[in-house]
Protein backbone atom coordinates (compact mmCIF):
# COMPACT_ATOMS: atom_id res chain seq x y z
CA UNK A 1 0.00 0.00 0.00
CA UNK A 2 1.23 3.47 -0.90
CA UNK A 3 -0.13 6.51 0.88
CA UNK A 4 1.00 10.07 0.19
CA UNK A 5 -0.38 12.64 2.60
CA UNK A 6 0.39 16.32 1.86
CA UNK A 7 3.79 15.36 0.55
CA UNK A 8 6.12 18.05 -0.77
CA UNK A 9 9.61 17.74 -2.12
CA UNK A 10 12.00 20.66 -2.49
CA UNK A 11 15.60 20.29 -3.64
CA UNK A 12 18.46 22.07 -1.85
CA UNK A 13 18.67 24.64 -4.69
CA UNK A 14 15.13 25.72 -3.84
CA UNK A 15 13.34 23.98 -6.76
CA UNK A 16 9.99 22.66 -5.60
CA UNK A 17 9.48 19.33 -7.39
CA UNK A 18 6.30 18.16 -5.68
CA UNK A 19 3.62 20.19 -3.93
CA UNK A 20 1.10 18.88 -1.45
CA UNK A 21 0.64 15.44 -3.03
CA UNK A 22 -2.22 13.30 -1.73
CA UNK A 23 -2.44 9.87 -3.29
CA UNK A 24 -3.49 6.43 -2.14
CA UNK A 25 -2.68 3.24 -4.06
CA UNK A 26 -3.98 -0.06 -2.72
CA UNK A 27 -2.07 -3.33 -2.94
CA UNK A 28 -2.62 -5.04 -6.32
CA UNK A 29 -3.67 -1.87 -8.17
CA UNK A 30 -2.54 -0.97 -11.69
CA UNK A 31 -1.82 2.74 -12.04
CA UNK A 32 -0.57 4.89 -14.88
CA UNK A 33 1.41 7.92 -13.75
CA UNK A 34 1.39 10.50 -16.52
CA UNK A 35 2.78 13.95 -17.03
CA UNK A 36 5.07 15.79 -19.39
CA UNK A 37 8.78 16.14 -18.93
CA UNK A 38 9.66 17.97 -15.69
CA UNK A 39 6.16 17.51 -14.26
CA UNK A 40 7.44 15.59 -11.23
CA UNK A 41 7.01 11.92 -12.24
CA UNK A 42 10.69 11.10 -11.64
CA UNK A 43 10.70 12.95 -8.32
CA UNK A 44 7.67 10.95 -7.22
CA UNK A 45 9.42 7.70 -8.19
CA UNK A 46 12.53 8.83 -6.33
CA UNK A 47 10.43 9.39 -3.23
CA UNK A 48 9.01 5.87 -3.47
CA UNK A 49 12.55 4.47 -3.68
CA UNK A 50 13.63 6.76 -0.87
CA UNK A 51 16.32 8.14 -3.15
CA UNK A 52 15.08 11.57 -2.08
CA UNK A 53 13.65 12.44 1.32
CA UNK A 54 10.33 14.26 1.44
CA UNK A 55 10.42 17.85 2.67
CA UNK A 56 6.93 17.82 4.20
CA UNK A 57 3.99 15.52 4.77
CA UNK A 58 3.99 11.79 5.32
CA UNK A 59 4.51 8.86 3.01
CA UNK A 60 3.86 5.20 3.70
CA UNK A 61 5.17 2.56 1.27
CA UNK A 62 4.70 -1.18 1.84
CA UNK A 63 4.58 -0.74 5.60
CA UNK A 64 7.53 1.68 5.87
CA UNK A 65 7.00 5.29 6.96
CA UNK A 66 9.39 7.16 4.72
CA UNK A 67 9.36 10.47 6.58
CA UNK A 68 11.13 8.82 9.51
CA UNK A 69 12.87 5.80 7.95
CA UNK A 70 16.47 5.21 9.09
CA UNK A 71 19.19 4.93 6.40
CA UNK A 72 19.98 1.33 7.32
CA UNK A 73 16.33 0.35 6.75
CA UNK A 74 16.21 1.74 3.20
CA UNK A 75 17.68 -1.41 1.56
CA UNK A 76 14.90 -3.46 3.17
CA UNK A 77 12.24 -1.04 1.88
CA UNK A 78 13.75 -1.36 -1.62
CA UNK A 79 13.49 -5.15 -1.43
CA UNK A 80 9.71 -4.76 -1.39
CA UNK A 81 9.70 -3.09 -4.80
CA UNK A 82 11.53 -3.06 -8.09
CA UNK A 83 12.02 -0.56 -10.85
CA UNK A 84 12.25 -1.38 -14.55
CA UNK A 85 14.15 1.45 -16.16
CA UNK A 86 13.52 2.82 -19.63
CA UNK A 87 17.08 1.88 -20.68
CA UNK A 88 16.75 -1.51 -18.87
CA UNK A 89 20.19 -1.19 -17.21
CA UNK A 90 21.22 -4.73 -18.11
CA UNK A 91 24.86 -5.71 -17.66
CA UNK A 92 26.59 -6.37 -20.99
CA UNK A 93 29.17 -8.74 -19.59
CA UNK A 94 26.59 -10.98 -17.89
CA UNK A 95 24.37 -13.48 -19.65
CA UNK A 96 20.58 -13.23 -19.40
CA UNK A 97 20.66 -15.85 -16.62
CA UNK A 98 23.42 -13.98 -14.73
CA UNK A 99 21.61 -10.65 -15.10
CA UNK A 100 18.52 -12.07 -13.43
CA UNK A 101 20.52 -14.03 -10.84
CA UNK A 102 22.49 -10.89 -9.93
CA UNK A 103 19.37 -9.27 -8.45
CA UNK A 104 19.06 -12.25 -6.08
CA UNK A 105 22.75 -12.46 -5.31
CA UNK A 106 22.97 -8.86 -4.09
CA UNK A 107 20.44 -9.58 -1.37
CA UNK A 108 22.34 -12.71 -0.33
CA UNK A 109 20.01 -15.43 -1.64
CA UNK A 110 21.18 -19.07 -1.57
CA UNK A 111 22.61 -20.51 -4.80
CA UNK A 112 20.01 -23.30 -4.65
CA UNK A 113 17.17 -20.75 -4.53
CA UNK A 114 18.76 -18.80 -7.38
CA UNK A 115 19.02 -21.97 -9.49
CA UNK A 116 15.33 -22.64 -8.88
CA UNK A 117 13.82 -19.19 -9.30
CA UNK A 118 15.78 -17.73 -12.23
CA UNK A 119 14.66 -20.38 -14.80
CA UNK A 120 11.09 -20.02 -13.52
CA UNK A 121 10.98 -16.29 -14.17
CA UNK A 122 12.80 -16.61 -17.49
CA UNK A 123 9.97 -18.96 -18.43
CA UNK A 124 7.37 -16.43 -17.24
CA UNK A 125 8.79 -13.81 -19.62
CA UNK A 126 9.35 -16.39 -22.39
CA UNK A 127 13.13 -16.26 -22.51
CA UNK A 128 14.14 -19.75 -21.39
CA UNK A 129 16.00 -20.42 -24.62
CA UNK A 130 17.94 -17.15 -24.33
CA UNK A 131 19.34 -17.82 -20.85
CA UNK A 132 22.95 -18.05 -22.07
CA UNK A 133 22.76 -15.11 -24.48
CA UNK A 134 24.30 -11.75 -23.76
CA UNK A 135 22.05 -8.64 -23.78
CA UNK A 136 23.81 -7.27 -26.89
CA UNK A 137 22.48 -10.23 -28.85
CA UNK A 138 18.83 -9.62 -27.86
CA UNK A 139 16.20 -7.39 -29.44
CA UNK A 140 14.86 -4.36 -27.54
CA UNK A 141 11.73 -6.27 -26.53
CA UNK A 142 13.71 -9.24 -25.29
CA UNK A 143 15.99 -6.96 -23.30
CA UNK A 144 12.95 -5.41 -21.70
CA UNK A 145 11.60 -8.84 -20.78
CA UNK A 146 14.93 -9.67 -19.13
CA UNK A 147 14.54 -6.47 -17.13
CA UNK A 148 11.05 -7.59 -16.05
CA UNK A 149 12.29 -11.06 -15.08
CA UNK A 150 15.01 -9.42 -13.02
CA UNK A 151 12.45 -7.15 -11.37
CA UNK A 152 10.15 -10.07 -10.52
CA UNK A 153 12.71 -12.56 -9.30
CA UNK A 154 12.93 -11.15 -5.76
CA UNK A 155 9.13 -11.29 -5.44
CA UNK A 156 8.52 -7.57 -4.82
CA UNK A 157 5.02 -6.39 -4.05
CA UNK A 158 5.42 -3.21 -6.13
CA UNK A 159 6.79 -2.85 -9.67
CA UNK A 160 7.51 0.59 -11.07
CA UNK A 161 7.98 0.60 -14.84
CA UNK A 162 9.61 3.77 -16.14
CA UNK A 163 8.46 4.45 -19.73
CA UNK A 164 8.27 0.72 -20.54
CA UNK A 165 7.00 1.32 -24.06
CA UNK A 166 9.30 4.21 -24.88
CA UNK A 167 11.92 2.33 -26.87
CA UNK A 168 9.90 -0.33 -28.68
CA UNK A 169 7.57 -0.70 -31.65
CA UNK A 170 3.79 -1.07 -31.41
CA UNK A 171 3.70 -4.89 -31.57
CA UNK A 172 6.18 -5.24 -28.74
CA UNK A 173 4.33 -2.57 -26.79
CA UNK A 174 1.30 -4.85 -26.55
CA UNK A 175 3.50 -7.76 -25.45
CA UNK A 176 5.01 -5.67 -22.68
CA UNK A 177 1.60 -4.42 -21.56
CA UNK A 178 0.30 -8.00 -21.51
CA UNK A 179 3.26 -8.94 -19.37
CA UNK A 180 2.61 -6.03 -16.99
CA UNK A 181 -1.06 -7.00 -16.72
CA UNK A 182 -0.07 -10.60 -15.99
CA UNK A 183 2.30 -9.36 -13.29
CA UNK A 184 -0.57 -7.30 -11.88
CA UNK A 185 -2.80 -10.38 -11.84
CA UNK A 186 -0.17 -12.11 -9.69
CA UNK A 187 -1.22 -9.60 -7.03
CA UNK A 188 1.61 -7.10 -7.53
CA UNK A 189 1.00 -3.38 -7.50
CA UNK A 190 2.13 -1.96 -10.85
CA UNK A 191 2.88 1.71 -11.48
CA UNK A 192 3.60 2.57 -15.10
CA UNK A 193 5.25 5.94 -15.64
CA UNK A 194 4.49 7.01 -19.20
CA UNK A 195 3.62 9.82 -21.57
CA UNK A 196 2.28 7.44 -24.28
CA UNK A 197 -1.31 8.71 -24.81
CA UNK A 198 -2.14 5.86 -27.16
CA UNK A 199 -1.25 3.38 -24.45
CA UNK A 200 -3.48 5.21 -21.98
CA UNK A 201 -6.42 5.10 -24.38
CA UNK A 202 -6.03 1.41 -25.15
CA UNK A 203 -5.71 0.27 -21.56
CA UNK A 204 -8.31 1.90 -19.42
CA UNK A 205 -6.74 1.85 -16.01
CA UNK A 206 -6.51 4.26 -13.12
CA UNK A 207 -4.53 7.24 -14.38
CA UNK A 208 -2.89 9.85 -12.18
CA UNK A 209 -1.82 12.98 -14.00
CA UNK A 210 0.84 15.16 -12.52
CA UNK A 211 1.67 18.65 -13.67
CA UNK A 212 4.16 21.18 -12.23
CA UNK A 213 4.58 18.99 -9.17
CA UNK A 214 0.86 18.70 -8.42
CA UNK A 215 -1.69 15.98 -9.06
CA UNK A 216 -4.22 17.51 -11.45
CA UNK A 217 -6.38 14.45 -12.07
CA UNK A 218 -6.86 10.95 -10.72
CA UNK A 219 -9.51 8.95 -12.58
CA UNK A 220 -10.27 5.71 -14.37
CA UNK A 221 -9.14 5.86 -17.98
CA UNK A 222 -7.49 8.68 -19.84
CA UNK A 223 -8.87 12.01 -20.92
CA UNK A 224 -6.66 15.04 -21.44
CA UNK A 225 -7.23 17.36 -18.52
CA UNK A 226 -9.18 20.57 -19.12
CA UNK A 227 -7.37 23.90 -19.12
CA UNK A 228 -5.47 24.61 -22.26
CA UNK A 229 -5.31 21.26 -24.00
CA UNK A 230 -2.09 20.34 -22.30
CA UNK A 231 -0.88 17.08 -23.65
CA UNK A 232 1.34 14.64 -21.79
Amino acid at each position, binding site marked *: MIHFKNVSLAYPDGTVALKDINLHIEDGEFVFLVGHSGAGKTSLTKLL*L*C*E*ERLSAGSLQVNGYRLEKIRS*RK*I*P*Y*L*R*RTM*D*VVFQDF*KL*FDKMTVYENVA*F*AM*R*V*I*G*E*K*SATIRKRVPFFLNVVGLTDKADSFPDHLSGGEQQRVAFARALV*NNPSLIVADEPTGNIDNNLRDDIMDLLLRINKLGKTVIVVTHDEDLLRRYRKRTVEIRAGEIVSDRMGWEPSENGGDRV
Partner: protein
Amino acid sequence: MRWFRSFVYNLKQGCKGIFRNSIMSTASVLVLLSCMIIVGTFYLVIANIEENFSRVDNLNVIEVRIPATYSDGQIEEIGNALSEIYKELTVLEGEPVFVSKEEHLRRFKEQYKDQEWSSFFDETLNPLRHSYELTFSSDADISEAAKIIPRIEAIKLSDGNLAVQSSDISSSIKLYENVAGIKKTLMAVGLWLMGILLIISLFVIMNTIKLGVFARRNEVMFMRYCGATKAFIRTPFLVEGVIIGLFSAALALGAEFLLYRYVLSGVVSSMTTAVSGSGIILSPYAEHLPLLGAVFCAIGLFAGLISGSISLKKYLKV
Protein backbone atom coordinates in the same frame (compact mmCIF):
# COMPACT_ATOMS: atom_id res chain seq x y z
CA MET B 1 24.47 -17.83 6.87
CA ARG B 2 23.20 -15.12 4.49
CA TRP B 3 26.04 -12.83 5.58
CA PHE B 4 28.58 -15.61 5.00
CA ARG B 5 27.29 -16.24 1.45
CA SER B 6 27.45 -12.51 0.78
CA PHE B 7 30.96 -12.32 2.21
CA VAL B 8 32.27 -15.18 0.04
CA TYR B 9 30.60 -13.64 -3.03
CA ASN B 10 32.15 -10.24 -2.28
CA LEU B 11 35.56 -11.76 -1.63
CA LYS B 12 35.49 -13.21 -5.13
CA GLN B 13 34.33 -9.87 -6.55
CA GLY B 14 37.15 -8.07 -4.73
CA CYS B 15 39.76 -10.41 -6.22
CA LYS B 16 38.26 -9.93 -9.68
CA GLY B 17 38.45 -6.16 -9.16
CA ILE B 18 42.23 -6.30 -8.76
CA PHE B 19 42.68 -7.94 -12.15
CA ARG B 20 40.07 -5.69 -13.76
CA ASN B 21 42.42 -2.71 -13.20
CA SER B 22 45.71 -4.58 -13.26
CA ILE B 23 47.87 -1.59 -14.23
CA MET B 24 46.52 0.65 -11.49
CA SER B 25 46.66 -2.21 -9.00
CA THR B 26 50.35 -2.72 -9.83
CA ALA B 27 50.98 1.01 -9.41
CA SER B 28 49.27 0.92 -6.01
CA VAL B 29 51.34 -2.05 -4.89
CA LEU B 30 54.58 -0.37 -6.02
CA VAL B 31 53.89 2.92 -4.22
CA LEU B 32 52.80 1.17 -1.05
CA LEU B 33 55.82 -1.11 -1.31
CA SER B 34 58.18 1.90 -1.48
CA CYS B 35 56.49 3.42 1.54
CA MET B 36 56.91 0.23 3.55
CA ILE B 37 60.54 -0.31 2.47
CA ILE B 38 61.48 3.21 3.56
CA VAL B 39 59.73 2.80 6.91
CA GLY B 40 61.30 -0.63 7.40
CA THR B 41 64.82 0.48 6.48
CA PHE B 42 64.74 3.43 8.85
CA TYR B 43 63.43 1.18 11.60
CA LEU B 44 66.16 -1.43 11.01
CA VAL B 45 68.94 1.20 11.04
CA ILE B 46 67.65 2.74 14.26
CA ALA B 47 67.13 -0.66 15.90
CA ASN B 48 70.69 -1.71 15.04
CA ILE B 49 72.21 1.53 16.33
CA GLU B 50 70.42 0.95 19.60
CA GLU B 51 71.41 -2.70 19.71
CA ASN B 52 75.09 -1.97 19.11
CA PHE B 53 75.05 0.84 21.58
CA SER B 54 73.64 -1.35 24.34
CA ARG B 55 76.44 -3.88 23.73
CA VAL B 56 79.14 -1.36 24.68
CA ASP B 57 79.78 -1.49 28.43
CA ASN B 58 79.98 1.47 30.77
CA LEU B 59 78.69 4.06 28.34
CA ASN B 60 76.01 4.95 30.86
CA VAL B 61 78.47 5.16 33.76
CA ILE B 62 79.76 8.47 35.11
CA GLU B 63 83.06 8.16 36.90
CA VAL B 64 84.08 10.69 39.55
CA ARG B 65 87.80 10.34 40.20
CA ILE B 66 88.94 11.37 43.65
CA PRO B 67 92.11 13.50 43.84
CA ALA B 68 94.98 11.41 45.29
CA THR B 69 95.56 13.85 48.15
CA TYR B 70 92.09 13.45 49.69
CA SER B 71 91.67 11.88 53.13
CA ASP B 72 89.20 9.07 53.88
CA GLY B 73 86.87 11.65 55.51
CA GLN B 74 86.83 13.80 52.35
CA ILE B 75 86.18 10.70 50.20
CA GLU B 76 83.22 9.87 52.42
CA GLU B 77 81.93 13.45 52.15
CA ILE B 78 81.94 13.14 48.36
CA GLY B 79 80.17 9.76 48.64
CA ASN B 80 77.45 11.29 50.80
CA ALA B 81 76.96 14.19 48.39
CA LEU B 82 76.65 11.77 45.47
CA SER B 83 74.06 9.75 47.42
CA GLU B 84 72.02 12.95 47.79
CA ILE B 85 72.17 13.46 44.02
CA TYR B 86 70.97 9.87 43.50
CA LYS B 87 67.99 10.49 45.77
CA GLU B 88 67.02 13.63 43.87
CA LEU B 89 67.51 12.52 40.25
CA THR B 90 65.37 9.63 39.05
CA VAL B 91 67.63 8.86 36.08
CA LEU B 92 70.23 7.18 38.29
CA GLU B 93 69.87 3.44 38.60
CA GLY B 94 71.44 3.03 42.02
CA GLU B 95 73.56 4.43 44.86
CA PRO B 96 77.05 5.62 43.88
CA VAL B 97 79.55 2.74 44.00
CA PHE B 98 83.01 3.30 45.48
CA VAL B 99 85.78 1.72 43.39
CA SER B 100 89.19 1.64 45.04
CA LYS B 101 92.39 2.34 43.13
CA GLU B 102 93.37 -1.30 43.74
CA GLU B 103 90.19 -2.45 41.94
CA HIS B 104 90.97 -0.04 39.09
CA LEU B 105 94.44 -1.54 38.82
CA ARG B 106 92.98 -5.05 38.69
CA ARG B 107 90.57 -4.03 35.92
CA PHE B 108 93.39 -2.28 34.07
CA LYS B 109 95.66 -5.33 34.23
CA GLU B 110 92.75 -7.54 33.14
CA GLN B 111 92.01 -5.30 30.16
CA TYR B 112 95.65 -5.13 29.02
CA LYS B 113 96.80 -8.55 30.14
CA ASP B 114 98.23 -9.25 26.67
CA GLN B 115 100.47 -6.18 26.83
CA GLU B 116 103.89 -6.66 28.39
CA TRP B 117 104.01 -3.16 29.84
CA SER B 118 100.99 -3.84 32.03
CA SER B 119 103.18 -5.89 34.36
CA PHE B 120 105.17 -2.73 35.32
CA PHE B 121 102.28 -1.64 37.45
CA ASP B 122 101.50 -3.19 40.82
CA GLU B 123 100.29 -2.08 44.26
CA THR B 124 103.53 -0.25 44.91
CA LEU B 125 103.37 1.51 41.55
CA ASN B 126 99.72 2.35 41.03
CA PRO B 127 99.05 5.72 39.28
CA LEU B 128 95.28 5.17 39.34
CA ARG B 129 92.87 6.92 41.72
CA HIS B 130 89.88 5.93 43.85
CA SER B 131 86.58 6.79 42.25
CA TYR B 132 82.80 6.75 42.56
CA GLU B 133 80.69 5.31 39.77
CA LEU B 134 77.15 6.54 39.04
CA THR B 135 75.08 4.59 36.57
CA PHE B 136 72.13 6.18 34.78
CA SER B 137 69.54 4.01 33.10
CA SER B 138 70.30 3.34 29.43
CA ASP B 139 66.83 4.42 28.32
CA ALA B 140 66.95 7.63 30.35
CA ASP B 141 66.08 10.99 28.82
CA ILE B 142 69.48 12.32 27.81
CA SER B 143 68.70 15.89 28.89
CA GLU B 144 67.87 14.60 32.38
CA ALA B 145 71.10 12.54 32.49
CA ALA B 146 73.10 15.63 31.46
CA LYS B 147 71.94 17.39 34.65
CA ILE B 148 74.06 15.01 36.75
CA ILE B 149 77.42 16.51 35.67
CA PRO B 150 76.84 20.12 36.89
CA ARG B 151 75.48 18.72 40.14
CA ILE B 152 78.70 16.75 40.71
CA GLU B 153 80.84 19.76 39.78
CA ALA B 154 78.98 21.81 42.38
CA ILE B 155 79.78 19.45 45.30
CA LYS B 156 81.69 21.30 48.01
CA LEU B 157 83.71 19.83 50.83
CA SER B 158 83.27 20.99 54.44
CA ASP B 159 86.19 23.42 54.01
CA GLY B 160 84.18 25.22 51.30
CA ASN B 161 86.33 24.13 48.35
CA LEU B 162 84.91 22.39 45.30
CA ALA B 163 85.35 18.65 45.70
CA VAL B 164 86.27 17.78 42.12
CA GLN B 165 87.29 19.50 38.90
CA SER B 166 85.58 18.97 35.53
CA SER B 167 88.63 16.97 34.45
CA ASP B 168 87.99 14.51 37.31
CA ILE B 169 84.61 13.55 35.85
CA SER B 170 84.50 11.07 33.01
CA SER B 171 81.28 10.32 31.18
CA SER B 172 79.93 9.31 27.78
CA ILE B 173 76.95 11.64 27.94
CA LYS B 174 78.22 13.61 24.92
CA LEU B 175 78.38 10.40 22.88
CA TYR B 176 74.95 9.47 24.12
CA GLU B 177 73.67 12.88 23.12
CA ASN B 178 75.14 12.55 19.62
CA VAL B 179 73.67 9.11 19.06
CA ALA B 180 70.30 10.22 20.43
CA GLY B 181 70.44 13.16 18.00
CA ILE B 182 71.16 10.85 15.06
CA LYS B 183 68.34 8.54 16.13
CA LYS B 184 65.96 11.47 16.44
CA THR B 185 66.90 12.80 13.00
CA LEU B 186 66.56 9.38 11.38
CA MET B 187 63.21 8.89 13.07
CA ALA B 188 61.94 12.32 11.96
CA VAL B 189 63.10 11.82 8.36
CA GLY B 190 61.63 8.30 8.36
CA LEU B 191 58.30 9.48 9.72
CA TRP B 192 58.06 12.36 7.25
CA LEU B 193 58.87 10.12 4.32
CA MET B 194 56.42 7.54 5.62
CA GLY B 195 53.70 10.18 5.98
CA ILE B 196 54.24 11.59 2.49
CA LEU B 197 54.42 8.18 0.84
CA LEU B 198 51.41 6.96 2.79
CA ILE B 199 49.35 9.89 1.50
CA ILE B 200 50.57 9.21 -2.07
CA SER B 201 49.71 5.51 -1.59
CA LEU B 202 46.23 6.44 -0.38
CA PHE B 203 45.65 8.54 -3.49
CA VAL B 204 46.93 5.87 -5.85
CA ILE B 205 44.89 3.08 -4.21
CA MET B 206 41.88 5.39 -4.08
CA ASN B 207 42.18 6.03 -7.81
CA THR B 208 42.56 2.32 -8.48
CA ILE B 209 39.39 1.57 -6.54
CA LYS B 210 37.58 4.58 -8.03
CA LEU B 211 38.31 3.20 -11.50
CA GLY B 212 36.79 -0.09 -10.37
CA VAL B 213 33.76 1.68 -8.94
CA PHE B 214 33.38 3.73 -12.13
CA ALA B 215 33.57 0.61 -14.30
CA ARG B 216 30.88 -0.94 -12.10
CA ARG B 217 28.80 2.19 -11.47
CA ASN B 218 25.72 0.69 -13.12
CA GLU B 219 26.06 -2.44 -11.00
CA VAL B 220 26.46 -0.32 -7.87
CA MET B 221 23.37 1.72 -8.74
CA PHE B 222 21.38 -1.40 -9.54
CA MET B 223 22.49 -3.03 -6.28
CA ARG B 224 21.17 -0.03 -4.38
CA TYR B 225 17.81 -0.19 -6.15
CA CYS B 226 17.60 -3.95 -5.52
CA GLY B 227 18.02 -3.43 -1.80
CA ALA B 228 21.66 -4.41 -1.30
CA THR B 229 22.98 -3.08 1.99
CA LYS B 230 25.77 -0.52 2.04
CA ALA B 231 28.05 -3.12 3.61
CA PHE B 232 27.37 -5.51 0.75
CA ILE B 233 28.17 -2.87 -1.87
CA ARG B 234 31.24 -1.68 -0.02
CA THR B 235 32.80 -5.07 0.76
CA PRO B 236 34.27 -6.00 -2.68
CA PHE B 237 36.01 -2.63 -2.92
CA LEU B 238 37.32 -2.86 0.63
CA VAL B 239 38.52 -6.41 -0.08
CA GLU B 240 40.30 -5.08 -3.17
CA GLY B 241 42.04 -2.39 -1.09
CA VAL B 242 42.94 -4.82 1.69
CA ILE B 243 44.38 -7.38 -0.75
CA ILE B 244 46.51 -4.66 -2.36
CA GLY B 245 47.66 -3.57 1.11
CA LEU B 246 48.47 -7.05 2.41
CA PHE B 247 50.13 -8.15 -0.82
CA SER B 248 52.34 -5.04 -0.65
CA ALA B 249 53.16 -5.89 2.98
CA ALA B 250 54.26 -9.42 2.03
CA LEU B 251 56.39 -8.09 -0.84
CA ALA B 252 57.89 -5.43 1.43
CA LEU B 253 58.92 -8.05 4.02
CA GLY B 254 60.71 -10.03 1.31
CA ALA B 255 62.33 -6.94 -0.21
CA GLU B 256 63.44 -5.75 3.22
CA PHE B 257 65.03 -9.14 3.89
CA LEU B 258 67.08 -8.90 0.68
CA LEU B 259 68.06 -5.30 1.45
CA TYR B 260 69.08 -6.25 4.97
CA ARG B 261 71.03 -9.28 3.90
CA TYR B 262 72.90 -7.86 0.92
CA VAL B 263 72.90 -4.05 1.14
CA LEU B 264 72.88 -3.16 4.82
CA SER B 265 75.27 -5.96 5.80
CA GLY B 266 77.60 -4.86 2.99
CA VAL B 267 77.61 -1.29 4.31
CA VAL B 268 78.26 -2.50 7.85
CA SER B 269 81.12 -4.80 6.85
CA SER B 270 82.80 -1.96 4.93
CA MET B 271 82.41 0.29 7.98
CA THR B 272 83.93 -2.40 10.19
CA THR B 273 86.91 -2.64 7.88
CA ALA B 274 87.32 1.14 7.71
CA VAL B 275 87.12 1.68 11.47
CA SER B 276 89.35 -1.03 12.79
CA GLY B 277 87.80 -2.89 15.65
CA SER B 278 84.51 -0.99 15.50
CA GLY B 279 82.80 -4.39 15.82
CA ILE B 280 79.37 -3.31 14.47
CA ILE B 281 77.06 -6.30 14.51
CA LEU B 282 73.80 -6.62 12.57
CA SER B 283 71.06 -8.27 14.56
CA PRO B 284 69.36 -11.21 12.79
CA TYR B 285 66.46 -10.21 10.49
CA ALA B 286 64.23 -12.80 12.15
CA GLU B 287 64.38 -10.75 15.37
CA HIS B 288 62.68 -7.83 13.62
CA LEU B 289 60.30 -9.89 11.50
CA PRO B 290 57.28 -9.94 13.89
CA LEU B 291 57.32 -6.17 14.46
CA LEU B 292 58.03 -5.33 10.80
CA GLY B 293 55.32 -7.77 9.69
CA ALA B 294 52.79 -6.25 12.08
CA VAL B 295 53.65 -2.67 11.05
CA PHE B 296 53.56 -3.47 7.31
CA CYS B 297 50.24 -5.27 7.65
CA ALA B 298 48.85 -2.36 9.68
CA ILE B 299 49.99 0.15 7.02
CA GLY B 300 48.55 -2.08 4.26
CA LEU B 301 45.22 -2.56 6.03
CA PHE B 302 44.98 1.12 6.90
CA ALA B 303 45.73 2.24 3.34
CA GLY B 304 43.38 -0.35 1.84
CA LEU B 305 40.44 0.28 4.15
CA ILE B 306 40.69 4.07 4.12
CA SER B 307 41.01 4.32 0.35
CA GLY B 308 38.22 1.78 -0.18
CA SER B 309 35.87 3.69 2.11
CA ILE B 310 36.64 7.13 0.66
CA SER B 311 36.32 5.97 -2.97
CA LEU B 312 32.81 4.67 -2.44
CA LYS B 313 31.44 7.49 -0.34
CA LYS B 314 29.89 9.30 -3.30
CA TYR B 315 28.09 6.19 -4.51
CA LEU B 316 26.60 5.24 -1.16
CA LYS B 317 24.90 8.49 -0.24
CA VAL B 318 21.39 7.11 -0.48
